[in-house]
């Protein structure tokens, strides 16, 4: 197990390094380069050359990349000139909030999707399964922004149950102090995830229900409920968990929409605003953070899978 974890960690580090290379390359292909971006369109070539020399931009690319990597290791993601703020400051301010929103909505989604998928699989091709399938297809094909507007119209305007705006507090504690205001953003994020994950869970459960070991469990007189949850459930969860790891970028994509609609001050909103003013350092900083989060997510998914499935552990011993 230790060996498996170590190997998997090493892989993750390599992937993150590759991501930094790509982001570095993108930073370098910015129109006019950083000098133009910072000095403005009035800068003379001499001023730009001078600036490039001072900043070390005239050094070989490899050296520059290593310097960039060194800065990243010290938490320096560059500087946003639009916000006149360090990118890392933007990230540390915003990331926890986005993690809170996406984390809670993913938890909610899994808590609903897993039992729902199993329930559907057990009632395969019966009325209940068809109804839920239709609903999940509808939810899956509804764009997040439309869903968000619908939620606001219905549950904030027509029936004023929840506020239309997400909590605006600066701290996590402050946000958690307004749970009612979190309901609509969390629900909007969860609905699409429920739609896709209940489908995965349904087909994975169906596959497992056809397995020989299910027949064995029944043949020794195991109660059906136990067959479903102890035997089938655990085996069906592994592919869903893998999907969850790769689902992280989708979650951030969804956060982009929900955060801007509910005006929630997270990474998504920061990215949205940065995109509108071509604030490349922030955009690329966010890309780097999300890519790293995806790598960490799939790493966690693999470790979780190793925890559930002994064969995964064994394969790397």
């Amino acid at each position, binding site marked *: 197990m230790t060996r498996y974890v170590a190997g998997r960690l090493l892989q993750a580090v390599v992937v993150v390094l590759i991501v930094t290379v790509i982001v570095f390359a993108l930073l370098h292909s910015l129109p006019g380069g950083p000098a133009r971006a910072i000095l403005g369109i009035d800068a003379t070539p001499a001023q730009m050359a001078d600036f490039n020399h001072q900043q070390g931009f005239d050094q070989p690319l490899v050296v520059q990349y290593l310097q960039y990597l060194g800065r990243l290791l010290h938490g320096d993601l560059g500087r946003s000139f639009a916000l006149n703020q360090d990118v890392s400051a933007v990230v540390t301010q915003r990331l926890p909030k986005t993690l809170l929103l996406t984390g809670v909505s993913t938890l909610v989604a899994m808590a609903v999707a897993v039992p729902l998928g199993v329930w559907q699989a057990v009632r395969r091709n019966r009325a209940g399964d068809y109804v839920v399938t239709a609903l999940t297809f509808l939810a899956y094909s509804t764009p997040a922004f439309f869903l968000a507007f619908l939620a606001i119209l219905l549950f904030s305007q027509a029936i004023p149950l929840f506020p239309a705006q997400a909590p605006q507090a600066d701290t996590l504690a402050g946000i958690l102090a307004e749970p009612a205001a979190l309901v609509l953003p969390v629900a909007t994020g969860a609905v699409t995830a429920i739609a896709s994950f209940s489908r995965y869970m349904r087909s994975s459960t169906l596959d497992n229900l056809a397995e020989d*070991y299910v027949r*064995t469990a*029944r043949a*020794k*007189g*195991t*109660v059906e409920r136990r067959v479903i949850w102890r*035997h089938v459930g655990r*085996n069906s969860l592994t592919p869903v968990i893998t999907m969850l790891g790769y689902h992280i970028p989708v979650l951030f994509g969804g956060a982009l929409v929900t955060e801007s609609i509910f005006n929630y001050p997270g990474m998504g909103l920061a990215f949205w605003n940065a995109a509108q003013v071509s604030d490349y350092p922030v955009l690329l900083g966010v890309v780097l953070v999300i890519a790293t989060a995806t790598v960490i997510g799939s790493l966690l998914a693999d470790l979780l899978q190793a925890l559930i499935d002994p*064969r995964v552990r064994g394969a790397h011993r």
Partner: protein
Amino acid sequence: MTEAAADSAADSAPVLTVRDLRISFPGGESRVDAVRGVDLELRRGEVLALVGESGSGKSVTALAAMGLLPPDAQVAGRLLVGDRDVTRLGPAELRDMRGREIGMVFQEPTTALNPVLTVGDQIGEALTNHENLTAAQVRERTLELLEAVGIPEPAERMRAYPHQLSGGLCQRVVIAMAVACNPAVIIADEPTTALDVTVQAQIMRLLRELRDSRGTAILLITHNMGVVADLADRVAVMRDGVVVEVGTAEQVLTDPQHEYTTALLAAVPRLGSGSRAAATDEPAADRPPTVLHLQDVRVEYRTLGRPAVRAVDDVTLAVRRGEVVGLVGESGSGKSTIGRCALGLVPATAGHVTLLGVDQRRLRGSRGRRVRRGVGVVLQNPASALDPRMTVGDSIAEPMVIHRVGSRAERQQRVRRLLDDVRLPAAAADRYPHEMSGGQRQRVGLARALSLGPDLVIADEPTSALDVSVQETVLRLLTELQAVHGFGCLFISHDLAVVESVAHRVVVLLGGRIVEEGATQDVLHRPREDYTRLLISSVPVPDPVQQAARRAAADAVLRESARALAG
């Protein structure tokens, strides 16, 4: 009545009674009758073998006795376990009956166990399903069960997961679960079919011991007449959903009354029923050319961060034109890897592979294509070896299309001739694989392998997915075609009797190494090595008297080698 008399009266009451059982499944417009009026009786301590080929309804009957048929099956008739009719029980009563009164052992031990639960957990569940036990009691009983089914180091194995155990050990675990609550009946559905012969012999020994020590009645479902001869007291022969013959094992196997039973027994390849003679020692110059030559071939599988697994270890063998070389061995012996290596699908880590006189490593580009034209392949599972979206004719013609042989009309003509060669009607060319039976599909596979008139055919377990009667026709076809076309053939199989009937020479493998090789009649009738002897004596023959003698001989070989190891 005395106590003893009461006991014998209880003994003689059947533990499983099947009366006029009829089972049908929905299929197309009408229902398909899988079982059409079956009567069976099984008494305490008795082994009743239910034999028949695929589609005979034997497994459906077994699943019905467990109440495990799919919900769309319609069941009529009576199916008594003890005195309760399974067909009339509700879900809760069925659940209570399964495991406590009737247990089941399945064909494929590795998939019959849940991969994410430990062996101990799964056996413990069989106990706690029916009894209220403390954790300590469950542990103790699980250990006892593991010991009873002959699993070494039970305390460690309890914590193991199924993938950490061999197929034979997994089957022992499945048997432990089946007998956990001491049921009166065990249904064993092809319990040894997925196992190697030496392991099969061990599992049969275990089942016999359990029957003797616990008085458990066993309904043994199998297609293997040797297993029947080894284990069964009585035999019921099924065909198309009806029992065509019932009797004692000796009677049915040695003096069958029904013509189907006679035909079935005649189709069983028997070890020792004569083999093809190997080429005599002609002067080297006159011998036909070597079509496949492996020289000191070693194949290793490497995984990052793990020691390499050596699947094939310094193997040297040659196949000449016109001869069939049988490659036998148990699972993990490397026999399939050698086949794949000969085809260039797996690179040799060391040594040389020469295919039709050309070094494997120089088989690139057009030269490689030209050489490969001379090689045909037949694989084990004809259902998955044929593209389901291609017609049979297209499948057979594909090698010709790839190698740009002939015009369209010529190819069609050749397809017709090949179909005729494998005794299929010309109309079969327009059919799809799913419209054919397993035997027909394998004949298509054979026709495709011969499509380019190969000098070498590599056949990897070509008949092990087929019923015996079908196997017989495919094997006869293969030998006939081989004699006519004169190609060399590397015939890979785990079945010694099959190899005996087709091969001129035999190579015996164990753990990636050649143990023994030579002319078929020498190796299989006068083996020099202990392992070959053990392999041969483990194959059960379909004659109860002979089989008892063979079993004794196998035990002697085992004892001898144990003594040799100790000494």
